[in-house]
Structure formats: structure tokens, C-alpha cells
């Protein structure tokens, strides 16, 4: 199962990339799983585990850690929003 992952704002800057395509291993089915998978790379990627207020979206809608993923989904991780 492949998904697209996007990073925004301070997280994008810290990771040095706006996003990537990710092949999910078997058993990696929720947003929380993907977050742990990426953070496990170590280094700056650990920010995904460390950020207390990390927000996430699936297919451009706000999602919860327990939300499940499907092939081709667009996942985004970002800090709390500060518009307006």
C-alpha cells in the first residue's frame, strides 16, 4: 500500500522536505502507525514523535490517530494552525 505524505510549516522546514511517497509495511494501517514509522528513522524525523500538538489530515480532512488508511491516500502532518 502506497500513500503520499506531506509536511507543512515548521515541520516541513525541520525535515527539509515538503513530502514523500511512502510504501507502508504490512500492519501499518492507521495514522498513528505511519507517524511511528516515520519517527523511527531517527534524527530530525523523531520530531514527529516529539511534537506534542502534531495535527494530521487524511485526503485533506482533519483526522485522528486511529483513522485508517487506504492505498493512494494523501496524509499530511503539520503544527497547530495559525491563520486568521
Amino acid at each position, binding site marked *: 500500500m502506497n500513500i503520499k505524505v506531506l509536511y507543512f*510549516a515548521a515541520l516541513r522546514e525541520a525535515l527539509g522536505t515538503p513530502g514523500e511517497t511512502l510504501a507502508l509495511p504490512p500492519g501499518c494501517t492507521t495514522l498513528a502507525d505511519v507517524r511511528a514509522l516515520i519517527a523511527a528513522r531517527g534524527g530530525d524525523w523523531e520530531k514527529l514523535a516529539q511534537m506534542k500538538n502534531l495535527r494530521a489530515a487524511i485526503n485533506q480532512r482533519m483526522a485522528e490517530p486511529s483513522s485508517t488508511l487506504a492505498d493512494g491516500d494523501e496524509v499530511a502532518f503539520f503544527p497547530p*494552525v495559525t*491563520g486568521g
Partner: protein
Amino acid sequence: MSFSACVQEADFDIGAEIDTLLGERGDVGAVATFSGLVRDMNDGSGVHAMTLEHYPGMTEAALTDIIDQARARWQIMGARVVHRVGQLRPRDRIVLVIVAGAHRGEAFAACEFIMDFLKTRAPFWKREDTPDGSRWVDARESDDSAAQRWK
């Protein structure tokens, strides 16, 4: 009259946006608006410029969803949200919310609701350029509590 949201780099004209929203409707009695501006100071540091990043696609969907929630809660006749992105300077306009209705109570409430939810649900992020360098603006807890009170 319509319900619409727009993300753009260009400035907006509040009077013209109101006129466009109202059109020829004769049953509107109340128009509430909010506009947010870039302040030259934030948390004690001078702000020279600000860059607004967003999540194209999700932003428009989030704004439309927030407007739909307002329509479900209050009797309103039309609404318009405009949010700027890109580089802005102190005193520049950032965001505009207009709500039109028959009476003022609904128009005020829906306008404030849309702003509170925009502040916590719409994927925009501000980065400020100050004399001490560039920094991403932290989310304010008061914005979370402002959104919570509508539950």
C-alpha cells in the same frame, strides 16, 4: 446570495466584497464582518513582514466546511471568507469574513463562529520576520478555548 471562500495572494476590498455578496437581495437586514490585520508587534518583538503558508486544496475544503457548519446552526442568507497567503507587511489585511442575514444576532454569531473555527481548523501557518530573525508563530491557547465554547 451565495456562500463562498477564497484563498488568494491579492488584497481585498471590504466594501466591494460586501456589495458583491449582497447583490440585489432586498431581504438582508444585517451584515457582520470581521477583518484581521498584520500587527507591527507580536509577543514584544517588532514584525517586519509575515509569510502565510497554507495547504492548497485542504484550505478551501476546510473553509467551505466551516461555512456549512455555520449555515446549519444559524439562519443566515450568505457568507464570504477571503484569506490571503504569501508575504504580508504590517497593517496589511489578512482575512475577511462577511455574514449576511435578516437579523443581527445570527449574523454576529455566525461571523464570530467562522473566525473561531478558521483559527483552529483551517490549515494556514504564519511565519514572522523580526529583527531577531524568522520564527513560526505559535498557536494560541485562547484560540482553542474560543472554538471550544461553540460545542
